[in-house]
Structure formats: C-alpha cells, structure tokens
C-alpha cells in the first residue's frame, strides 16, 4: 500500500471508528437485543436438548452462535446508515473534490464495522461463557470465533455500503434489516439441520448460507476443531465480503462523480 493510500485509509478509518463509538444508540441495541434473545431462547428451548441427536446438552452453548449472526446484521444498517448520512449531508460530494481513491473510502468506512464487530464478539462471548456456555475449542477457539465474527460483520457491512451507495436512501438501508432477519430465521438458528422436520423448511435452511455460518461458530463451541466447518464458514463470509466490496465499488463509481 502506498503512503498516500495508507494516509487516506487511516484518516477515514479514524473518522469511521470515532463515529461508531460516539453513537451509543447504534451500539447498545446491537449488544443488548441479541443477548436478550439468547437469554429467552436458551431458557425457552432448553428442552430441545432432549431430542434424540441434539449435539449438546446445553442449549445455551448451541444458541450462543446466533448473537454473532444477529450482531453482524446490525452492521448492515450501521455501515449503510453512516455512508448514507455522508451522501445526504454532502460530505461525499466534498470528498469527490479531493484525490481520494475509492478503495480508501470503502476500506476506511468499514473500520467502524470492524470495531463494532470486535466489540460485539467479545461481549457475546464473555456473557455467554459467564452464563455457562461451553467452548470446546478453548482459548484459541475463542480467538477464532472473534476473527470469524468480525469477518462476518464486515462482510455484511459491505452489503449495507452497497445499498446506501446504490440508492442514496436511508430508508432503503433500514429496510434491508428485516430482509436479513428472514435469512436468519429461515436457517438452522433454533435447531440443527438434521433435526428440522418440515421438508420445505429443511430445504430452505440447507440452501441458506447463514446455516453454515452458524455451524462454523457452533463447531468451535460444541465440537472443538472441525476444519471443514470452519473453512466453509470463513469461505462464505469472505465470498460475501468480496461480492459486497465489488458491488459497493461499482456503486461508488456512479455515486462519486468527479467534478
């Protein structure tokens, strides 16, 4: 990376991180809401562990994978809303007058998502383990969970960036949140794939990449080191990240019209 590009990315990343940290209204729900659902679901669905073939005797451990995904969903809105505000306030137009590179803008803007992802992952993990969840993969597994969580958060953040750059509408970005929740609910969120009885639901959940992202987290919590599950999880996250960045870069070209 050249010195100029590094400076540009650094400046924008610094701004993005500060902006994220200065908005408790964005951070607090992203921390509290998934933990509330974790508490309710792990209490309400405790008896699911009595189903033959359920992979663990602790539903809390099984459900702990879900907050990482829910937290990542929040980054769609956070990242998208931030750049949408830059569009609406004219900040992006002012940037267009500078020799700023598109890659620097996108990378810098995602720094806020990285920080949010890190904060979320550590909080969910600490709360989950304190509440009694197992972590079969040990300390290295905890680090891997944090890295995977940040990767997924940034990947979903690129989708928010794309939506904001493509539409320039905060409402459009906000409306993506329920759409992504559909992906979460129609996955193996509540039960393992092989215990889902409805054929149609099983088919949808099996085709839903979120199921495999959840499975990557769960493999570390429940099984230990399952490299196949991990590779699949990281592969899906990195694919979403690459596609999101590509789409966002295309949208940025249109949006960042040089004057």
């Amino acid at each position, binding site marked *: 990376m050249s010195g100029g590009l590094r400076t540009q990315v650094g400046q924008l990343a610094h701004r993005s991180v500060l902006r994220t940290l200065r908005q408790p209204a964005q951070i607090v729900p992203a921390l509290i809401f998934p933990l509330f659902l974790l508490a*309710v679901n792990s209490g*309400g669905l405790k008896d*699911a562990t009595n189903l033959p073939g359920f992979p663990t005797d602790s539903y809390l451990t099984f459900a702990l994978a879900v907050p990482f995904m829910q937290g990542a969903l929040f980054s769609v809105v956070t990242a998208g809303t931030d750049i949408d505000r830059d569009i609406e306030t004219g900040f992006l137009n002012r940037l267009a007058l500078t020799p700023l590179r598109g890659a620097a803008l996108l990378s810098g803007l995602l720094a806020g998502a990285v920080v949010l992802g890190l904060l979320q992952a550590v909080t969910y993990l600490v709360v989950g383990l304190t509440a009694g969840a197992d972590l079969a993969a040990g300390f290295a597994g905890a680090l891997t969970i944090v890295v995977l969580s940040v990767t997924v958060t940034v990947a979903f953040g690129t989708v928010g960036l794309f939506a904001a750059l493509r539409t320039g509408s905060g409402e459009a970005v906000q409306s993506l949140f329920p759409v992504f929740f559909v992906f979460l*609910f*129609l996955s193996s969120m509540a039960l393992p794939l092989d215990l889902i009885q409805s054929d*149609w*639901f099983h088919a949808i959940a099996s085709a839903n990449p979120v199921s495999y992202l959840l499975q990557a987290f769960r493999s570390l919590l429940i099984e230990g080191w399952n490299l196949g599950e991990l590779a699949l999880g990281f592969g899906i996250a990195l694919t979403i990240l690459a596609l999101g960045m590509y789409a966002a870069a295309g949208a940025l070209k249109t949006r960042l019209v040089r004057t």
Partner: protein
Amino acid sequence: MSAPRPAGLRTIALAVAWRSIHNFLTNPAFLVPAIVFPLFFFVSFAGGLSAIANVPGFDFPTGYTAFQFVFVLLQSAAFGGVFTGFGIARDFETGFAQRYLLAASSRGGIVAGYALAALARAFITWTVLTAIALVFGMNVDGSGVELIGLYGLAVLVNLTATMWAAGVAMRVRSIQGGPLMQLPVFLILFLAPVYVPLSLLSGWIHAVASVNPITALLEAGRGFISGDPTVIALALTVGATLPVLFALWARGGLRRAEAAG
C-alpha cells in the same frame, strides 16, 4: 339559521378510523410489513421448530402449528396496536394530529378512532394469517364458540397495545418514540411461554413467565384452539383489566398532548 351541531364522539371516531384505515390500505409500506411479518414468524416458528413437539412432556394434541399460531395471532394483535401508535406519532410530527385536536369537540373520539383503525388492521392480518395457517395444515379442535373466545382475546390484546402505544405517542409526539412503544411489547411477548408450555420451562424464564400476564392469555388461547379451555377466568380478568388500565394511560397522554397544543 342555527349553528351546525358539533360532531359527536362516534362521528369523530369513524372519521379518524377511516383516514387511518385508508392510509394503511393504500400505502404498501404500511400494509406489507403488517401482513408479512406475522406470516414470517409463523412460518419460521411452526416450520423450523416443529420437532419441539417431540420433546418429552410436550403435550399439545392439536399440534405444534396450532400451538405457534396462537402466539403469532396474539403477537400480530399487539404489533397492530404498536404500529397504530407509530401512525399517531407521525400525525403529531406532521401536525395533522394538532389539527384533529383543534377540530374535534370530543377528543376521546380521536383515540377511539385510532383504536378502531388498529382493530381493522388486525382483522386484515388475522384473516390472512388464519388462511395461511389452514393451508399449512393447522389442526383446529376448538368449537366455534371457543374460536370466538380465541379471537376475542386477540381483540383485547390489540386494544391494550393500541392504548399503550397511543399513550406513548401522545406524550413523545415524535416517531423517535417508536422503540419505546415497541420494545416493552416485544419483551413481554417473548417472556411468555413462546416455544413450549409453561410446565416445560424452568429457571428464571419459568419464574418470569409465571407472573407475565401474557402467559394467561396465551394459555387460554391455546386451550381454546385445542377445544380444552383452560385458565379462562384469569385470562378474561387480565384481558379486561389491561385495556382499562392502558386507556387511562392513553387519556393521560391525550391530556399532555392537549396541554402541549
């Protein structure tokens, strides 16, 4: 020539309700989420969690689809009320509600109109939800009277949530009060026996669900759909008390809005 008589409560309520229902039906941004979200919850709970019916001790003969249908019905009733609260807040933001306050001789009619609109919205959602549930193969073992009881409980939940949200909306008078309307309703609903009966819950969630008023409504509703009515007296007491309490809360909000001008 005598001056025209001021409109009564009924006329005002019908006029406010008509406008709210018209807005709801003609704006896809309001109509689609109101119908799609309950369906989505129903599909994901009833479809994805159907294996829960095999958990030892789970004894609900009508099936897991009906078990979840009752929860989603009451949830959609509650959120129909909350979304109406959003509409009230929006009316205050745009200044339309202030014009209502100026024009209406009976301001209670304004709140009654919003409540009627919330009920109409809920009926539309329930019609679609019930049709989809039956298409999904939901069993119904309750009699006609028992089903009226089930939908009657949903009406009471809808009225309670509308009064709660109206009270918040008229105090905050901004759509920024949305989370304040939505979050407590969401919390109280999910702190009830959503996935399994109360008897299968344990620990803190059992303790909370046991004192949660929604639990009685949920259990009574599930009893109605399975043709085995249970905790009816408690559910009716809760169902009748909550709307009255929250109507007082809404009246307080109306007073605040009137004072604010």
